[in-house]
């Protein structure tokens, strides 16, 4: 079983790992379904917290990806760009989008733990 306790979650359903990798949650991939295109930022790009960093498009609709914290893009996942269905198959491992050099670790304080995120989901109105 994958340990999700080291991840932090945003209300917009992105997760970030301690080393700055960013992806979307299992809940989000299920809601979005069938991801067919992924737009990820280029290496070197500086992002502000909650800035739109890219987007994912599924058969259903397009969804923005927001940066959970500020930082510079230091790596991108070329594999997910080639095979976007990885977002559905493996949202917490192979389906990550890009990696940030975290500018200010304090910004992660406002994000949720996996348990808090699960509680947060219960308060969200199901979007179908």
């Amino acid at each position: 079983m994958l340990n999700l306790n080291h991840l932090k979650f945003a209300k917009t359903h992105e997760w970030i790992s301690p080393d700055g990798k960013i992806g979307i949650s299992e809940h989000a991939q299920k809601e979005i379904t069938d991801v067919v295109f992924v737009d990820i930022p280029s290496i070197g790009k500086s992002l502000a917290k909650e800035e739109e960093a890219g987007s994912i498009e599924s058969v259903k609709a397009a969804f923005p990806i927001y940066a959970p914290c500020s930082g510079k893009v230091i790596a991108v996942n070329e594999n997910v760009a080639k095979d976007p269905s990885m977002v559905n198959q493996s949202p917490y491992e192979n389906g990550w989008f890009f990696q940030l050099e975290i500018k200010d670790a304090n910004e992660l304080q406002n994000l949720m733990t996996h348990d808090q995120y699960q509680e947060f989901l219960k308060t969200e109105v199901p979007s179908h």
Partner: protein
Amino acid sequence: MKTHIEPQLKHTPLYDWHKKNGAKCVGFAGWEMAVLYTSIVEEHLAVRKNAGVFDISHMGQIFVEGTGALNFLQKLCTNDISKCRVGHAIYSHICNTEGGVVDDIFVYSLVLNQYLVVVNASTANKDFDWMTKQKEGDVTIRNESDSFGMIALQGPKAISVASKLFKNIPGRHECLAENIQNETMFFCRTGYTGEDGLEIILPEENTLELWEKILFAGKDSNLLPCGLGARDTLRLEAGYLLYGNDVDEEHTSMESGPSWVVKLNKENFIGKEALLKQKNGELKKHLLAFKLKDRGIPRHGSKIFHQEEVVGQVTSGTFSPMLKIGIALGYVPLNLEGNFSIECNGKKIPAEVTKLPFYNK
């Protein structure tokens, strides 16, 4: 696909099965329908490669009977129903006097003077009222939509799956009424996916049993239960229009096509005069099919550009799982050539006009 949640959605006889088996459900045309079980793309590909089964019990069934049935249907329909021999099926539009499309339907000729008309869920009551209003001669019209379930079994392996369950399978575009366990079931070799297959209409209370039998018989063929999501991507890839999106009363049959659906050499039918006028030079716009030349997915309502000018809106758009590109339909003015683009997720993506179907085997 247009979806909207209504306070009191109707349930098909398979609703509990869908819920138990993890379907994601949405409101569609007043019904709470399964939109997908696992993945739209997976279900789509199952139908293209093997087989899939769809709950389409929301569809309406109207019976038209009597010695005047053919004449009445001829007056109602744009297509030539006299060409539909007993045991055959024909697709048609029903128009209002302005040529606007009241519904797109399938007419099945069951026996002499008895026709089954399969109509859209959202329009079943409107159609019945329209038909009743137009009624003349010895004709009885019965709206039996609420007493029937309907299952579509589609895909290259659909007929071999069906052969395990039924002795008699109708030929392509044919139909058959069968008495099984004292219940009448209608087998129609038609569909909405571009694949071979059957649409089976049966009493509501028998629907679940048949659904489970089909799933069991299809196990070795990798048959999957499929939701309305895959039904929508399949029908668009195959170039079939969706009533309420691509065809409606605001657009005429001449504008929407397909061209063969209107038989202007047929004697009078409702809407003929208006359609004839359009044919003779008054046609201003038409439904075109677009393939995107770059990455992007057109959606219902996306803007269609010709050069820099907005000339229309996408009526249906999706990602084609077979072609792996964005595809769309939309109404645009006549006589525009080249240089189309469609706005997808804020970006203008070049698009080329193409013939239907988008995908052909």
